[in-house]
């Protein structure tokens, strides 16, 4: 395996009294596509939210591209990271949310342009060009000046993906991106993710309940149960040939 792009080392996370992650060790290779599956409450969303710096681990370390994410080295000791350090490390990470979280006061083109211009200092003209290209790629080239409230859920989610992609992250995180969509809109969003995955160079971590989709695009499937990684392997190993009772009872819920 190539030098990993992200490494979790004995990561624990508690919310108050409740420990949702009980020691996660996980490595993600560059360009690797990892699907996180598991029952709700198993901690899969928390895993990627910690990588996006939206949730701070209670203990343990996360390393992104050779740099500590939540810690900085100071006089040979690890101290909690400050805002500046977090900004520096999380620049390589992008995320798409279950509820889209588009900026409602901006057109969809502005939604895509705002971060490249303000965060990365990309010239306006180039940011515009990159955003238009990306929106065309997700099939929304004719809606540049629409506002999020004018779009369907599936369209919103495609804008959210374009917005994350124009930042050219090395890792993209997908947090149950089809869970809030009407069933007939799920397909168009998965199709876009498939296209992105096929291009290859970006690592992707997907929290998902779409088992067929996970089998399709994932290099590795990780099954979480009660805050621990219970099983992991290729989609065939995990989704078809596992002997774990918990996993099979979980999977049986998705077979009709």
């Amino acid at each position, binding site marked *: 395996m190539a030098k990993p792009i992200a490494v979790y080392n004995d990561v624990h996370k508690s919310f108050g009294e409740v420990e949702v992650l009980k020691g996660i060790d996980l490595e993600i290779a560059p360009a690797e596509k990892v699907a996180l599956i598991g029952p709700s409450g198993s901690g899969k969303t928390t895993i990627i939210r910690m990588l*996006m*710096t*939206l949730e701070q681990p209670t203990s343990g370390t996360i390393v992104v591209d050779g740099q500590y994410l939540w810690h900085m080295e100071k006089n040979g000791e690890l101290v909690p990271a400050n*805002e500046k350090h977090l*900004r520096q490390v*999380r*620049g390589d*990470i*992008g*995320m798409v*949310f279950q*509820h889209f*979280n*588009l*900026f*409602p*006061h901006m057109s969809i083109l502005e939604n895509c342009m*705002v*971060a490249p211009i*303000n*965060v990365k200092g990309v010239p306006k003209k180039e940011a515009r060009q990159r955003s238009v290209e990306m929106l065309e790629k997700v099939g929304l080239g004719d809606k540049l000046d629409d*506002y999020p*409230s004018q779009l369907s859920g599936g369209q919103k989610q495609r804008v*959210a993906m374009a*917005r*994350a992609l124009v*930042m050219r992250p090395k890792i993209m995180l997908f947090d149950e991106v089809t869970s809030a969509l009407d069933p007939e809109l799920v397909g168009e969003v998965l199709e876009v993710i498939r296209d992105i995955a096929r291009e290859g160079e970006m690592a992707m971590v997907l929290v998902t309940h779409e088992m067929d989709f996970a089998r399709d695009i994932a290099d590795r499937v990780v099954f979480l149960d009660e805050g621990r990684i219970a099983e992991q392997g290729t989609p065939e190993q995990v989704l078809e040939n596992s002997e774990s009772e918990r996993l099979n009872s979980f999977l049986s819920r998705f077979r009709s």
Partner: protein
Amino acid sequence: MQGINITVTVLIASAVLSYLIAFIAGFGRLSNNIFIRKFTGFYVEVFRGTSLIVQLFWFYYALPGLFDIHLATDFWAAVIAIAMNYGAYMSEIVRGSILSVAKGQREAATALNMSRFQRMRLVILPQAVRMMLPEFGNYLIQMLKATSLVSLVGLTDILYHGDVFRSTHLSLAPTVYILILIFYFILALPLIWLTRWAEKQSSKGVASE
């Protein structure tokens, strides 16, 4: 009728100053610094918890008498009193609006690697301000009516002139006060329209989750 210019200038000056104070105090109450938070909280409670007219008398009579502080002119004493009072109320609107921007907006901004300041400037404030507008309009109308109190400290606004006129033409008292009411209402009308417009604006472009 004379005095309209005083009423209007007091209103404009108080409004501008009170919005400024509202933003400063609103942000102060959201500060990470506990002293700033406590201090602005204290200011807000004191000015909300006491009457405007007493505050007006304080700025006008008590401060000069007690501490020899003179707030430049009568005009500014009145404006500062009104602005401090309404600024305290409106700081709560500023604070509440900022807090009520959906959490997902902050998270999306973080995921795009915006700094704390950029998150506020580009994502949170533009939405929060839309929520503030209708309430700001309501307070503006209230402020117009509150300006009538400045006649009590000798500023020659609409009410002051009306009172003077009435004292020399006692039989016309009802007519005079009806006229004053009409004047205030005419002044309030554009503000009412402004508030309606603000409500329309605010219904657009805010995340609703």
